[in-house]
């Protein structure tokens, strides 16, 4: 099978999955017991006003029509209107997304670096105290609720030692604006990138200070699976003959570990990164809440507190689509890198 046919096949497979996903969300939000509109506006409005709101939100139409509108709306990029102020949910998500993206990227980097490093070390000293401790770390990091770890960090570094901020993304006035050439403006929304584009090291430093604890928290919790994966892959590879042969040629343990064992174990790690994306998003929700990080996760939690059901639905749909897209990309990338998969 060629790469092209695999890609096409994979995309075709994604479509029914996305449809199922969207339908699932629709069912959950519309069909489960309870009238969301009623609950939201409960004590604030007269029945007449409630009917008006219902009409404005398009929730008075028959279910099938709502379903159709919902799907068609998505094709246009319309994720509904917020119950709070009838503004576009899509717009709000768009604003909040870069913060989550930035947090996710840094967390994933930390998770992979930490996980691979520890996993490699564990495989090197198989069955030793170091190996067992690292394995235990892998399990413990998975069992700690991410928000608990975050709070512990806040306690130690923020409140106890006062060296790192406990919340927020940046101090007021320090937001990087990105590239500015005359009238031309360009910013990515990622503060790290934007501060580099702007050429302001103090802003970069401030950004990193705020980014450190949240991404470290999420990174540690995610690293467990990479520790385990790297360790078992390396153990397998290290047993192979060419590793012994390499040692027989006098290569140092480090050269053997990184040049021989790790290179062969790398591809599964790449796939795992993609698979962990869903867990990353889930963890991001909790991390953002803990650190008051203004991303999608916190947006969702805020909307829950306000019982803003249409916004909640919009956010969840967005999450689902994001995950579907990322796994599609990862699958294609993997097929590109490893020809055996396509066969």
């Amino acid at each position: 099978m060629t790469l092209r046919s695999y890609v096409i096949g994979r995309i075709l497979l994604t479509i029914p999955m996305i449809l199922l996903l969207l339908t699932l969300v629709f069912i959950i939000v519309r069909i489960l017991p309870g009238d969301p509109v009623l609950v939201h506006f409960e004590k604030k409005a007269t029945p007449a006003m409630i009917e008006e709101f219902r009409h404005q939100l398009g929730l008075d139409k028959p279910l099938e029509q709502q379903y159709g509108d919902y799907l068609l709306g998505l094709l246009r990029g319309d994720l509904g209107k917020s119950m709070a102020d009838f503004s576009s949910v899509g717009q709000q998500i768009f604003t909040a997304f870069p913060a989550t993206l930035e947090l996710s990227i840094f967390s994933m980097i930390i998770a992979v670096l930490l996980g691979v490093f520890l996993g490699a070390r564990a495989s090197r000293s198989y069955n030793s105290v170091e190996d067992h401790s690292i394995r235990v770390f892998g399990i413990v990091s998975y069992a700690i609720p991410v928000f608990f770890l975050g709070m512990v960090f806040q306690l130690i570094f923020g409140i106890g030692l006062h060296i790192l901020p406990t919340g927020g993304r940046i101090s007021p006035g320090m937001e990087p604006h990105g590239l500015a050439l005359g009238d031309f403006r360009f910013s990515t929304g990622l503060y790290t990138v934007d501060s580099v584009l702007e050429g302001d090291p103090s802003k970069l430093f401030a950004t990193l200070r705020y980014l450190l604890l949240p991404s470290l928290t999420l990174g540690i919790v995610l690293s467990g699976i990479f520790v385990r994966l790297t360790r078992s892959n390396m153990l397998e590879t290290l047993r192979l003959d060419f590793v012994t042969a390499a040692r027989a040629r006098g290569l140092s343990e480090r050269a053997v570990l990184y040049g021989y064992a790790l290179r062969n174990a790398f591809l599964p790690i790449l796939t795992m990164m993609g698979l962990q994306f869903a867990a990353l998003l889930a963890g991001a929700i909790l991390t953002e809440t803990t650190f008051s990080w203004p991303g999608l996760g916190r947006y969702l939690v805020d909307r829950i507190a306000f019982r803003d059901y249409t916004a909640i639905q919009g956010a969840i749909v967005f999450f689902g689509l994001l995950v579907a897209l990322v796994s599609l990309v990862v699958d294609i990338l993997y097929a590109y890198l490893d020809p055996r998969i396509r066969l």
Partner: protein
Amino acid sequence: MTDTQTRGRIVVQLIPGLASLRKRGLAGWFAVIGLAMVFVVVLMTATAPWISPHDPNEIGTGPVLGPPSLSFPLGTNHLGQDMLSRLIWGGSTMLQVAALSVLVCFIVGVPVGLLTSYAGGLVDRSASLAMDSIYAFPGLVLAIAIAAMLGPGVVNMSLSIAVVYVPSYYRIVRSQVLSIKELPYVEAARTLGASGRSTLLRYILPNVLPSVVAVATVNFADAILTAAGLTFVGLGLPISTPDWGWDLTYGRRLLPSGAWWVITFPGLMIVILALGFAFVGEGLSELLNPKLEQ
């Protein structure tokens, strides 16, 4: 052999299996330590009415935000409630939610997995597609979605969590069924006239169960963490029940005053409980698939 006899056989085989856990090196250790941890927590929760020094809900038992002291070893919270009592009572809801969700997952996931993958064909493919869609969805997000719609309460929380994890059970059952289905002795049984139902029950189910149990234990840990997550996000239980998750969540607001004890102990308990199950799961899965690490 009747169904009861088969079930009896399975249970009888599990018990000596447990006893031989210790012999199996590190994997056995993991399982034993994990079981001990879980047991201690369950015991503590079960005996709460007798061992709790104070009423966990009573406001003003002690000073407001009092640090750990002799009379209140784990300190008091913003309402003057004794943290130790709250700790002892606090595991109950979490255990209930987790147990219920694992039960639901089991009841739904295993039969669906058995039947659809045994049936094969379109039924299998569609079930697989549906399950994959759910599985791909970020767990917490889905649980949030359902919990937000259903409202608070133990049963609702359990259901939200159960929906998220049913695909895990389904998948393990399916992979086992698919591999066992084609084995010669199953074919032989079928040629000899065994019906589909009895083939499933007598041959496939006993082989599938051990792996399912391993998944269930890890799943318990996940359920606990997801339940805590739901609480943290505001979709938990009514405030009156003492709950570790709730203490953690509310404790967040108390952090700036430096009252570290309000979150540390409940948090640690959640870790211990989840870790206990995770250890058991780790040990079990290694026992079931001993790696050729010799």
